Every structure is written in C-alpha cells, then in structure tokens.
C-alpha cells in the first residue's frame, strides 16, 4: 500500500552528519526537536516492533487465507509464506455464501450513514455555532446529553421503533438510526465555532442569507472535519455487528459482518475459508482508510477530535 507513506518526506533515513558539523550537531541534540543518530535507530527498532504487533495478526490471517488445503495451517513454527499460494479459499467462500450481495448490503447501509451524517450534522453544527437564536443552548445541551447514553442501552427500544415502522429485517431499518450521531453534530459545531467571526460579517454585509453563508463561506473551511466524519461514519456502519444482528433475520438481507458470523458458525472447522471471508471484509475498509488517511490525520490536527 504505497499511498500510506508520507510523500512529502523522503523514505530514507538521513545520512549521518559530516564530521565538521559534529560539534554543533551534538549541542543541538540537547535541545528538544532534533534527534541523535542512536535515538533515531532506537526509535525505528521500537516502531518496527509495534508494527509487527499491530499488523502481524492481519498478515497471519491473510497468509492462512492463501494456503492450499494440502498445507498444514497448524504448524508449531508458523509459516508466514504459503508454500503454494492459491485463491481457492476465496472462490469457496463465494460459493458458500452470497458475498457480493452482502457487500452490496453493507455498502448501502454505509452510504446512507455517510450521507446522513455529513449532510445533517454539518447543517446542525453550523446553526449551533454560527447562528444566534433563542433555544440554541438548549439544543446544544440535548446533543451533549445524548453523548452519555450508551447506544446499547437504547438498542432494544430502537428495535421496537423499527419494528413498529415495519422496517424490521430490512436494510433501511439497519441504516436509519445511524444516520445521525450526536457526536458528529458536536464535532461540526466545534469546527464551525473555530472559524473567525469576521468571515460571516463580510458575507452578511454582502447580503448573503444563512444558507449561502453556510454553503459558500463556512463549509469550505471545515472540509477536514467533514472528511473525518465521513470516514468514521463509513467505517462505523461497515463494521457494525450488534445492531444488524438484532434487526436482520433473512440471509438475503445480511450485511457483511453478519454474513461473516454465519460463515464462521457454519464452517467452524474450515479456518482457511473463515480467513478468506474475514479478509474480504477487511481489505476494502483497509483500502478506504489507506487512501483517505491523509485527510483523517489532517482533520484530527485541525482540532476535529480533542478531549
């Protein structure tokens, strides 16, 4: 995955300083901000160690999914490289469960979550941060108050609501409650609030109405936070398990995580197949994140997520 690496910085360790510079270099090293060569090496060693811990399990699963049935996957000394790499396990998953339609279902739910959260929380966040009206504090308080409510505590009642709307066992029923998260409204509120007040006043003098100020003036300045919300909404919907597990009963409506649980229950003894299935669920989200990670980290630096 090449887009992961920072293109702005060279991917090589800078060469050791030339001898004449040595003196100044050492004095600099006492000051925070520059790094001695030994510290740099130590840092990279530790970074690689943490790297192994954090992505090792994924690589192990990927490797297992590529191993043929002839290869022992339970060797005591782990064989990371498959002796005869094969995509056989992936085709077997495709034959066993309708993976493509599960992916379609998950995409549908995720798309609604992204659209709902981006549109509605930018609108609400803008109103809370940049418009003055009676009841603003109360509305803000309502969004804050729901933050302490763990979603699991209302999940039963939400199921009853969805059932009474005749949306039980439908994808719309899965998607609907997640289309706005109070946290996202507050993140947008925070982002809009940090914009200087002057940009509004200039637009007001020009006769711009509230929506024009929202669309033309404020929104372009908070794109980083919007990106963070879009990425998080997609990931949250794609990864969600408990809520679709409660709402869905028919296999043709299953999202990918539910389908995966079904696969692991039905083929519990076939680890190669389960590995292939979990990679099918993981690789798309990894690609989405790797492609957009720059916006993600930039959005966070913008002040999107702060304690």
């Amino acid at each position: 995955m090449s887009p992961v690496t920072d293109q702005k910085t060279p991917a090589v360790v800078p060469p050791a300083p030339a001898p004449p510079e040595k003196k100044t270099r050492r004095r600099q090293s006492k000051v925070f901000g520059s790094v001695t060569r030994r510290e740099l090496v130590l840092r990279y060693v530790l970074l690689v160690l943490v790297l192994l811990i954090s992505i090792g399990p994924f690589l192990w699963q990927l490797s297992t999914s590529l191993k043929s049935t002839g290869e022992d996957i339970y060797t005591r000394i782990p064989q990371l490289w498959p002796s005869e790499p094969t995509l056989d396990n992936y085709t077997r998953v495709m034959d066993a469960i309708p993976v493509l339609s599960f992916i379609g279902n998950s995409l549908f739910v995720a798309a609604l979550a992204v659209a709902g959260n981006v549109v509605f929380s930018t609108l609400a966040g803008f109103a809370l941060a940049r418009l003055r009206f009676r009841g603003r504090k109360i509305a803000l308080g309502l969004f804050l108050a729901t933050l302490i409510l763990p979603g699991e505590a209302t999940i039963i009642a939400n199921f009853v609501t969805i059932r009474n709307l005749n949306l039980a066992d439908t994808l719309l029923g899965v998607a609907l409650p997640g289309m706005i998260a109070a946290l996202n409204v507050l993140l947008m509120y925070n982002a809009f609030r940090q914009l200087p007040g002057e940009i509004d006043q200039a637009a007001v003098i020009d006769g711009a109405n509230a929506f024009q100020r929202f669309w033309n003036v404020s929104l372009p300045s908070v794109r980083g936070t919007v990106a963070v919300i879009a990425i998080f909404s997609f990931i949250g919907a794609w990864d969600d398990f408990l809520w679709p597990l409660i709402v869905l009963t028919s296999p043709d409506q299953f999202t990918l995580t539910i389908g995966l649980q079904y696969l692991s229950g039905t083929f519990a003894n076939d680890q190669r197949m389960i590995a292939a299935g979990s990679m099918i669920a993981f690789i798309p989200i990894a690609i989405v994140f790797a492609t957009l990670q720059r916006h993600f980290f930039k959005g966070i630096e913008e002040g999107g997520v702060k304690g």
Partner: protein
Amino acid sequence: MTVTDVSAPAAGGPTSGRPRRDTGPTRTTGRITPWLFLAPALGWLMVFSIWPSLNTVRMAFTNAKPLGGTEKYVGFENFSLILRDDQVVNALVNSVVFMLVCLPLLTVLPLLIALLVEKKIPGITFFRTAFYTPVIASAVVVALIWTFMLDDRGLVNGLAQELSIIQGPLPFLTDRWLIVLSAVSLTVWKGLGYYMIIYLAALGNVGKDLHEAAAMDGAGAVRRFSVVTLPAVRGAMLLIAVLVCVAALRVFSEVFIMTGGTGGAGGEAMTMVMLIQQYSRGFTGDLGYASALSILMFFITLVPLLLLGKLNGKGGE
C-alpha cells in the same frame, strides 16, 4: 435535499447598533431559519435517542415480546428477577475484571506509543496509519483472527509450546477466565491506535519551548516526561480512563464471536450486552427483561462518567 427552502432573506440584518455579547454568534437570521438547519438532526435525536430512552423505561415494567402481541404491566418483576439472575452477576463480575485489567494497559501503552510516533521522522505517517489499522477493522474480523490464533492448535499455543513456556495447550476459548483475558488482549490490541490518537492530539498542545526550557535547565528525558509531558496529557489520560471503563461495560462482539455466541461453558463468560441481545429476539425473547437490563447497564456506565466529572472539577485549578 430540502435544504434550499431555508434561503429566505435574512430578517434580522447586521446588528451593528446593538451591544454585542461575547458569547454566541451574531444574530443575522430570522427565528425560523436556524430550526430548519437543526430539524433533521433534532428529529433523529428525538426518534432514535430520546424516545427510545423513555420507551426503555416503560417497557422495563412490561412483559413485551420481540414478536409483538399484547403487553402486560408487570411492575418491578423484571428488576427483582435481575437481582436473582446468576448470569447477570456473572456478567457484572466479568465486566469488573475486564475493566481492572484493561484500565492500566490502555492508559499507559497508548501514551508510550504516542510518544514514539510523535516526532515527525521519515516514514512516521506510515507507522501511524499502520498502528491505527486494528481500530478500523470490524470487531467481528478481529475476533475471528484472534479465535484462530488462540485456538488449541493455533499460533499462540503452538509457539508457547514450542518455546516450552507451557506444556499443553491453554483453553483460551473455553475457560471462563481465559475467555475474559483473551477478550482483554484483543480489546487492548484493537484499542491501542485509538487512544494513541487522543494522546497525540494532547501532546500536540505541549509547547516545544516548554521542553526546551526544561532541557536547558538540565532536565533529563525522564524528568522532562514527568514534569512537562505528564501534566500536559493529564486531561487526556482521565478521559481515556473513563472511555476504557465505559467500553469495558459495552463489550459484545469480541466475546460473542470468540465463543460462537455461547459465552463459554454455561454462558459464564457472557457480557451484559450479550444478555441484552439474547433476550431481544425469537420466541423465547423478553423485551421487558432486556429493557430492565439496559437500564441497569445505563446506570453502571454512569459511574465512571460521574467520577470523571468529579476528578476534573478537583484537578482543574
């Protein structure tokens, strides 16, 4: 999008004459416009957060069933059943153990990793992204990966036996406490990147000059850490401690997948949310009981949040 109908002319106009308060933005719109902006979000909040909270309380006093039908008022019966339910006691004990093991690990390790990736050395973005990868993966995927690794013949047992750390395989996925510990290691592994980012944001607020000043005064790395870094991340650390506690009470997918939905032998390793889910469906389900469990869960998650408020009030000088 129906947002276009909010483009009514701004009625208030610029408020140049009026004395302005510092708090809140300038009044430049009519009374209705802000509410049009807020309407969808508030509507959703009402239907999918506030109404369900009230409905949960109502249902906890009924015998509502997942498949509908008539509901009967049963008074406090659900709550008195909870008090006598061994599974609930088990679930609460599991949560407490889970919390006590997770808490030190997830408040300290992510800070160390954040310090490791803080400095912008070449390739650091790659490492940050890679460390964050477990966070973006679904709990289901992660739990399946760990189930395979913790299998009797899996990677962990195989390596540990090869290195003669253990004699026979450990039953990570069947023994009650080993299930809880397996869920802890999975949660810690998956959470490292998430809390790393929170620490990273907090560390970003530490002025470089503070570190420089401390270094000039001859403070070593350890002393700089305790005098400059720790006070700076204190708020983040408190927040993370609370988030970890709340997350410990909400564990579901990890244990559900690792035990195939059973919660181990006799369901002893079940979590609160697994119980709620179990009662939420099918002919044997009981939404009234599940609602009562939800209320119990809500009040327990409130404890760490209140604690945070208290600690914050004390510490914030």
